[in-house]
Structures are given as structure tokens and as C-alpha cells.
């Protein structure tokens, strides 16, 4: 049987984690290729619906990462994001969505190693939990595929 290769999307802020991931590269630290980054100006910009869309489109795991508290480039975006995640995680958990599959982290522009760790640990964890069948089952309906196509 072929090993399960999880699809993991990382939503990161431009100023800290994106730069931290750049540093991981500059330092040639290796990490798993399962994680792909989408860049945002700030964690404050990351709408909770973006996370829902990722699961719907087949993501098995999600990483959300930004500047450490008090380090936000926009001073307060990550504070607002943190509140949003506290509430959203509560809601997801209550509706039976596996919050283990969303890894929130603070990774600064200097934390190249930490970024590699976050990516590798998350990949390892998702690999162990397995594909997100619950969500995929309802998402991979023909209806959705058709509708997805109209969005192009």
C-alpha cells in the first residue's frame, strides 16, 4: 500500500513566518514537501472561512502561523487573530471538526529551525491521524465539483 501523503496548507503572515520560512530555506534546513505556503499580509487577514475552504478542497491539515504576540508588523493583527482562533477552535470542536488538524503557531523571522519543526511535526501528526475522510466525504460530492468549476 502506498504511504499516505497528507496535503497540508500553511497560511502565514508576510512579516514573520513567511520570512522565517525563507530563513529555513537560506539555512538549507530540510522539511517535508507536503506543506505549501499561502502568503497573507498578516494573521489578522486570515478569515476563518479560508480554513473551511482548505478542508473542503481536500486539505488533511492546516498550519496557521504569524508573528509572536507583541511582534506584529501591524502591532495588533495577531492579537485579533488569536481571539478569532480561540473562538473558532471552540466552534470547530463543538461541531465535531478535528482541531488536531489545525496547527497554530508563532514563528518569527529568526526562527528558521522552528518553522521546519512546525512543518515536520505537523506532517508527522497528520500522517498518523490519516486522511481527513469525514470532511472529504462530504466535500467530494459531484455537486461540489460542478460548483467548484463554475468558480474558475
Amino acid at each position, binding site marked *: 500500500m502506498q504511504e499516505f501523503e497528507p496535503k497540508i496548507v500553511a497560511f502565514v503572515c508576510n512579516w514573520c513566518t513567511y520570512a522565517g520560512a525563507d530563513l529555513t530555506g537560506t539555512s538549507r534546513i530540510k522539511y517535508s514537501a507536503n506543506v505549501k505556503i499561502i502568503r497573507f499580509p498578516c494573521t489578522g487577514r486570515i478569515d*476563518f*472561512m479560508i480554513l*473551511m*475552504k482548505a478542508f*473542503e478542497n481536500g486539505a488533511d491539515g492546516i498550519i496557521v502561523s504569524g508573528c509572536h*504576540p*507583541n511582534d506584529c508588523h501591524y502591532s*495588533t493583527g495577531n*492579537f*485579533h487573530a*488569536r*481571539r*478569532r*482562533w*480561540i*473562538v*473558532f*477552535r*471552540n*466552534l*470547530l*470542536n*463543538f*461541531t*465535531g*471538526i*478535528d*482541531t488536531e488538524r489545525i*496547527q*497554530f*503557531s*508563532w514563528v518569527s523571522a529568526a526562527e528558521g529551525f522552528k518553522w521546519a519543526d*512546525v512543518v515536520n511535526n505537523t506532517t508527522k501528526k497528520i500522517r498518523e491521524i490519516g486522511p481527513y475522510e*469525514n470532511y472529504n466525504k*462530504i*466535500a467530494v*460530492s459531484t*455537486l*461540489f465539483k460542478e*460548483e467548484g468549476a*463554475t*468558480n474558475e
Partner: protein
Amino acid sequence: MSDLIKKVTALLNDKTINAFIGYEKGSADRIRAIFARTEDQAQKLVLNAFCTQNLAGYLMKHEVKKLGKLGILANVAALRSIMQLASEFQIKDGEVYVLFANADGSLTEFTDFKSIETFLQTTDTGIKSEEQEMIAKLESMTVNERWLFWNKEFEKCIKCYACRAACPMCYCHRCTTDVNQPQWIPVASHELGNLDYHLMRAMHLAGRCVNCGECATACPMDIPLNLLTYQLINPIKATFGATAGMKADAMYALSTYKPDDKENFII
């Protein structure tokens, strides 16, 4: 003639208000909302144990707003709705004439926000114990059991949007469900579209829900929708110290922050 009818008639006659939102008898002895604009219509007003609907939602309806200066028969949930709407700049102080029906049937007038705030401070605004128990029951399940529970519930949803129409906080002219550039929420009422819709709705009401329960009451498919938003009320209060609909100038829990907000999941 009841005190209520007398009062409303007087208010209409001296033009304090142009219309009064209250309850009347509907078909099959049910209670429904009435928008009394004339003395004759005011005669139809009733007030009894079945008058439990939160009428504040009507304050935000375009058709009702058009009627001019409004009066409303409010219960506790409606008072809180008015407070929350005020904090979101949807109602100005003194704009709405509020009559509150006390448990003994007597009426209290509220002409400004301050008096409503003071009143709410000493009023029980919590979630009913049976709903608390239901939430506790769900919380004691495993994640997967909860998933199956809600999946089964959402399966019933026909996307009629009665919940949205009944909710006093769903006053947007254009709901996210209607946004199609991009189409965040699939239109069809299949499992995914329903899940998306209800998660979105719950999130948009987080920190704003005044636990009136109109969404669940309105649902023709009997989905316990109110639990989704109720369940967030206590954590938001415990973590951020915020309760919706208690003050007219309250700050919204999700647009404010404290540098030392506590969480245990960010690494």
C-alpha cells in the same frame, strides 16, 4: 381595555411613535407579530404567556423601518438585542420606544439606553438550564460523535434561511451566503453547503448572540441551531470577559483584544 392597548393607543395618537411592534392572535390561536399603526390595529394587541418571540429582529427590517418612529414590546432578549444593535450603530439612543412586559403583566417604559443597561444588570440573562444540559451532553461526546450528530442535523437543513430572517443580529443587506465573487458558501443545500453555512453563521454571531433562540424556533426542520451560538457565549465571557447585548457602547469581543489573552494551542 388592557394597559398595553391604552398605552399604545396614546403613543400612536400623540405621534410619539408611528408604529408599534407587538403581538396579536394569529390563525389557530397562535401568536404572531403585529405592526400597529392605527388605533384599530392597536386594539388587536395581546399579551399572554405565549408572547415569547423576540420582536427586536423586526426593527432592522427594511419594510418596518419605513413605517417611521417605532415602538416595541420587548422581552429580555429583545432588550439585549437592542443593546447589541446599538453597540453596532444600528439603533440610536431614543430612536426606538421600548415597552417592557414584566412577569406580572405590568409595563415598564424605557426611553433611553442607560435605563435598559441598568435594568439588564439585575436581570437573569443566562442560557436556560435545559440548553446548558444539551450543550454539556454534546461536549461530553467524542469529536466523531459530535461530527455525526451535527452531520445528521445539518442533513435536514433545506437552506430556507428562516434562521437568518429570525435572528435580530442578521441584519446585513447582503449576507455572505449571497456573495458570489467568490462564492464562499455553496448555494445548494447539500451536506457541505449546509455545514459551511451554519459554521459561518455561528462564527458571525460569536460574541454577538443574545441567546434569544429565535433561530431554532424558526427552523422548520427542528435543527437545534441555537446551541451552536450558545456554546460560544460562556467561553467568550470566561476568556475575554465580554457578554453581548448588555451595554449600548460595548466593544465587540472579536474586534478587541488583550495582550495577555490566554490560549493553550498556539505553539
